């Protein structure tokens, strides 16, 4: 919310002193570097897409076919992926796990953020700091002890292993983000409601939550993307092919000893990326604000 307001402001003065720059100078200092950046940043996606629809013959014959283009596009790799591998199952697993982990984390984060930011119980500041520190604990140092725990709890190789461990990085992030949103809601609204006899629960559900819908969306899609992209826990806690998530499945099941099915691999990477990219394209503003918001607070 704060970010969109801030991005609007510079546009009021129409680029400031931009008119002082001549066009050739702008081409060299702005447009040319931007073009290079965009090409470099997008090339892997182009390469992924073009490989996914390229017949195997063209893929390895650079002498007769220009590798940057595809002469006879084919859906063979995608067909193979969807019908001859467990890929659809991995997609379903990833969707279920990400959605469940996101809801669980949002639920916990809403209460925690409201308590820290508005109930101001004794020690709320310290708890807020602890939540921030929890966000800095990386999965790479937790996966070994967590794997022991997951095994002892009998969750090994079940979706619950991931649904319960993803909140370790989602809850701190969502709480931190929502704290920022709750802070922007005027105290007066809550005071009015308190005077009118509303309970804390009513204030939370009828006043604070409706006002922080943008924040909830930001936290939600961000959490969903983070769980969709998670790799190390999914690699460690899941063993059987049918329980794998997309990133793990593509890497461990589609790569067979020495024959690289590049077409199928790229198709798998492409289709696995699409859901988050589509989600992202619908909520770019929320996405940017949650990313910058989490850093700025």
């Amino acid at each position, binding site marked *: 919310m704060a970010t969109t307001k801030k991005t609007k402001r510079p546009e009021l003065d129409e680029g400031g*002193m931009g008119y002082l720059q001549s066009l050739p100078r702008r081409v060299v200092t702005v447009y040319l570097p931007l073009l290079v950046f965009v090409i470099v940043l997008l090339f892997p996606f182009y390469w992924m897409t073009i490989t996914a629809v390229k017949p195997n013959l063209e893929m390895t014959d650079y002498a007769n076919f220009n590798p940057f283009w595809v002469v006879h596009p084919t859906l063979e790799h995608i067909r193979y992926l969807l019908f001859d591998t467990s890929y659809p199952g991995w997609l379903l697993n990833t969707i279920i796990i990400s959605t469940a982990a996101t809801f669980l984390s949002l639920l916990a984060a809403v209460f925690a953020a409201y308590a820290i930011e508005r109930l101001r119980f004794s020690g709320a500041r310290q708890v807020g700091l602890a939540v921030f520190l929890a966000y800095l604990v990386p999965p*790479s140092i937790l996966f070994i002890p967590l794997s022991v725990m997951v095994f002892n709890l009998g969750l090994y190789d079940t979706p619950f292993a991931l649904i319960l461990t993803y909140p370790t990085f989602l809850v701190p992030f969502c709480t931190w983000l929502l704290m920022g949103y709750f802070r922007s809601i005027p105290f007066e609204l809550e005071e009015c409601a308190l005077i009118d006899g509303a309970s804390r629960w009513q204030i939370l559900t009828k006043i604070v939550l409706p006002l922080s819908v943008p924040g909830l969306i930001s936290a939600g899609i961000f959490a969903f993307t983070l769980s969709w992209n998670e790799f190390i826990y999914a690699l460690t806690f899941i063993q059987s092919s049918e329980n794998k998530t997309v990133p793990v499945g593509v890497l461990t099941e589609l790569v067979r000893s020495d024959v690289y099915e590049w077409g199928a691999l*790229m198709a798998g990477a492409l289709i696995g990326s699409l859901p988050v990219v589509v989600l992202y394209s619908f909520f770019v503003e929320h996405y940017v604000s949650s990313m910058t918001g989490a*850093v700025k607070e």
Partner: protein
Amino acid sequence: MAVSSAAVQPRPSILSRSLSLLADSRNALGFGFMLPAAALLLVFLTYPLGLGVWLGFTDARIGRPGIFIGTENYQYLWDDAVFWLSVFNTLLYTISASILKFALGLWLALILNQNLPFKSFFRAIVLLPWVVPTVLSAIAFWWIYDSQFSILSWALMEMGLIDHRINFLGDPENARASVIAANVWRGIPFVAITLLAGLQTIPQSLYEAATLDGASRWQLFRFVTLPLLTPIIAITMTFSVLFTFTDFQLIYVLTRGGPVNATHLMATLSFQRGISGGQLGEGAAIAVAMIPFLLAAILFSYFGLQRRKWQQGGGD
């Protein structure tokens, strides 16, 4: 009749009174509201953190609890050349990737901060590498770095710049450069977009005033942009450094630590020894060895952020 009703009445009133007292008490309500998040984090974050430290002092293996063996794991690692190589690799990887990400990210942010047509479109496009699952984009890089069919080798050979294929992931030096390049590719958008948000909070009037005072373009950047951007640079780079230092996915996909351990990071070595090799205790010890570095990075940035208070004349 009257007696019994008088005897019954106080009971619900005490109950409801204590309930409303509870609801009014910040601490009781705060405790209740914190419970779900606290339970999740204590059970799945704090406890494993402690368990990890404990495992580092045991000889636990997969399927066997292990007994306390003191600092034996650490003594073993101290004499282990591969461990020290992984520490060196991690530092090299983190430092060079972070510097590149910062320089290129800042450059891109400055470009995007110009008055461009389709500005929000470019901003959306630029963030894509960061949105897509790392493993999946890393697989694309794997194909780009293929020893036989690398598109980069082909393009450079067509242009006549090189005369034989580059062995991107097979040669130690090339492999290090390749994984750093892939990490920078993925990290630039995050740095650029967060710094862009910081740039947009700097008022244009400061630039105009400095220009009237005769400041050059470099001076505008050095004395207006940079000081005002420092706080957000500090926090962005802290996050970037932490995530690069603990990176696992990219290496696991591209090289699995090879060739001859030249790209093994501490996280991948910890996975290789702890999970693939089954030596949970040793793997945990390697993971614990990462903690001092992380703490150092956090403290460094904490004091970096403290500076901002007096820089901006106290308070926000």
